[in-house]
């Protein structure tokens, strides 16, 4: 597979190294000449010292025949431009962008980036797993990025407590498939009665979020006030 990696920071460097180690053909583009030379010294002549945001340099790097373009610079705007050019000018089948600001995720998706990797979101998710939250927890993206793995922690006031999945009105395109109770994960059957403290794992489209929240989390503040 021919992979074009844009951005020679830590992520791009290690990504390139791992891909080469796995036997893939890789080109790394890094606009900083000194950094590009430093990487080339370490991993060989696979580094092009140019700005990947410019179409002519993407062409020079072989974007026309790339199977994947991974834009992993530290700049969301650059990553978006790179993926858009790769997709629309060079017909790259798969574009992957690093998104540093989670607020940019929807924009990236809307503009046709195939896959998003958000380190911020991942770290946030990891932190949220250890602290009580009253929101749905996004565990990760699946497929081409249009599906999300979501966790809901059922707490006092949740409308789902005492109910079975078949009694809940799930949004279309979303399904509950596992429950974690006392640290043990079990498949969620239609007649499993949910209890306080359960962590329910769902898979669904991002737009299912509000309805899922309503069914599993509910309006906790209102419940407490009541």
């Amino acid at each position, binding site marked *: 597979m*021919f992979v074009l990696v844009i951005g020679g920071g830590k992520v791009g460097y290690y990504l390139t190294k791992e891909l080469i180690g796995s036997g893939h*053909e890789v*080109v790394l583009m890094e606009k900083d000449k000194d950094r590009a030379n430093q990487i080339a010294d370490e991993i*060989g*002549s*696979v580094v*092009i010292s140019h700005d990947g945001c410019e179409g002519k340099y993407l*062409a*020079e*790097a*072989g974007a*026309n*025949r790339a199977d994947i373009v991974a834009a992993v610079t530290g700049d969301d705007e650059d990553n978006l431009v790179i993926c858009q050019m790769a997709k629309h000018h060079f017909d790259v089948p798969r574009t992957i962008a690093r998104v540093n600001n989670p607020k940019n995720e929807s924009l990236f998706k809307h503009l046709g980036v195939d896959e998003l990797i958000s380190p911020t979101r991942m770290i946030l998710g990891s932190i949220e797993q250890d602290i009580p939250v009253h929101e749905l927890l996004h565990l990760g993206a699946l497929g081409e990025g249009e599906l999300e793995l979501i966790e809901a922690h059922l707490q006092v006031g949740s409308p789902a407590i005492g109910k079975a999945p078949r009694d809940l009105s799930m949004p279309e395109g979303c399904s509950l498939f596992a429950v974690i109770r006392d640290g043990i994960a079990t498949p969620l059957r239609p007649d499993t009665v949910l209890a306080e403290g359960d962590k329910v794992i769902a898979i669904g489209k991002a737009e299912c979020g509000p309805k899922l929240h309503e069914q599993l989390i509910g309006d906790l503040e209102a419940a407490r006030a009541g």
Partner: protein
Amino acid sequence: MPSELSAPPVFRRAVVALSGHPNGQRLIRLVAELAKPYKAELIGVHVVEIDWSMPLDMDLAGRSDEIQQVLDVAEGTAEAAGVQLESVLLQARDVGAALVDEAVEREADLLVVGLAYRTKFGGDFAIGKTIPYILKNAPCAVWVVREPIPEETS
């Protein structure tokens, strides 16, 4: 010259870069003369640089008469000097890296490259990126042969 031959050979196996440049023949003659008394092995390598927009295994070099001529001329020049030269054609992303890799693979103890030097217009000296790469990365001795290219006709 028995006294010279009793000394250890300057090199046993040399990789010679074949650039296809007019200087190439002089370079081969020079290396061949040094190789002859010791029966040192000569490997002439011509590298065709393929840019990233094309797959590396695309057969570009094999179809070119010009490239074939570079190899034939190199072999002929060495033969005329009484030395056998094995010619090798490589397709690579980077000439310097390909030459160094070949030297490593063949366990060459010498890598010879030519450096064309334009004398007209005061001589626009430029060493390029291949030679610095080779000097930095080759595991063996490197000879850079710098000669003026023939005068251009105005």
